[in-house]
């Protein structure tokens, strides 16, 4: 039960999350975007929670787990999946293994088109110390042969969050690909402007940076409250307990989130 009573002031939205960040594993992500650098930047930007969400792969999740432990930030492990409809969807998980499992399913469903690093950029995954461990051979920007419905099912089975990305953008979004937002059990919809330019109905809205370079981390974010957590001793983020994935999930379910998007 939440600790605030009906009719009372809701708990303050003191926690900040940016759950859409590309690392060096995305061909479009800068090589300087190592998991360690992202965790460092997330902390510097005042985030409590951050996620690495590369295109169709989660192979930087283990390094990101270690990097966030060092920075005192709650890591979330994700993938920005390209579905058969060529819609980008954030799949977010509590544990690296859950994201890696979805990554294996997606890899098998990607067409056998290989990456050309000269043309598209590198697709490397690294360890905590930024040593390259390996390189993904298939081109990660291709669409996986998995429909939106199938993806929703896989994510549900792995206890993850199903959040269509930048639904108000003119490319690779629900609105651009389909022309409408089909009724599905979304955990939330990610938008890049408030109010969004498309009809999002009664869905909970979140904002994330979609950063591809270090300066972008935290540029858009979502504040949320975690009434189950004892507040920290200082206003805003304090030395109190850190919110976890379950707190974020509950905040989405209960609509206790507020996307923050700077004016351009």
């Amino acid at each position, binding site marked *: 039960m939440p600790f605030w009573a009906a009719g009372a002031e809701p708990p303050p939205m003191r926690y900040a999350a940016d759950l859409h960040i590309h690392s060096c594993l995305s061909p479009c992500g800068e090589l300087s975007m190592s998991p360690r650098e992202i965790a460092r930047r997330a902390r510097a930007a005042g985030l409590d929670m951050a996620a690495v969400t590369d295109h169709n792969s989660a192979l930087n999740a283990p390094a990101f787990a270690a990097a966030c432990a060092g920075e005192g930030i709650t890591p979330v492990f994700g993938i920005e999946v390209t579905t*058969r*409809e060529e819609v980008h969807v954030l799949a977010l998980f509590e544990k690296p293994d859950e994201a890696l499992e979805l990554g294996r399913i997606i890899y098998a469903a990607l067409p056998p088109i290989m990456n050309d690093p000269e043309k598209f950029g590198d697709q490397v995954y690294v360890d905590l110390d930024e040593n390259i461990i390996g390189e993904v051979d298939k081109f990660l920007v291709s669409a996986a042969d998995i*429909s*939106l*419905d199938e993806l929703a099912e896989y994510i549900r089975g792995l206890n993850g969050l199903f959040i269509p990305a930048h639904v108000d953008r003119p490319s690779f979004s629900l*609105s*651009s*690909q*389909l*022309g*409408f937002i*089909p009724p599905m059990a979304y955990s939330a919809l990610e938008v890049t402007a408030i109010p969004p330019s498309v009809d999002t109905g009664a869905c909970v809205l979140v904002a994330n940076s979609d950063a591809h370079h270090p300066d972008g981390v935290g540029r858009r974010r979502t504040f949320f409250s975690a009434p189950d957590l004892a507040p920290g001793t200082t206003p805003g983020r304090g030395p109190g307990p850190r919110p976890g994935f379950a707190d974020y999930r509950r905040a989405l379910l209960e609509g206790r989130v507020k996307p923050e998007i700077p004016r351009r």
Partner: protein
Amino acid sequence: MKIGELVEKLGLETVQGEWKEQELKGGYTSDLLSDVMGHAAQGQALITIQAHKNTVAVATLAGISAIIIANNRPVPEDMIEAAREEGIAVFRSRENQFTLSGRLYALLGGGG
């Protein structure tokens, strides 16, 4: 030309055969469904490789009466069911969008 005539004239495979027979008023070719919504017209056939049930939803909204899936893409069962409920024909061809569009255009008398 009726929808049913497409099968023989374009050598199509019928994937969903329960449609309301009517005169075909033209065709539209696109793999971006938001574009289909914006530009396709009532009574046209849609040529696309987007084989999933949301294509049926868009076809319903745009008044598309038949969907032709190009490049022999597999058609999932939920798409077939959705099309059956809406009475929209679904066909499939080995040919690509360009070839199908050209042949349909010629069949319909070069557009006018």
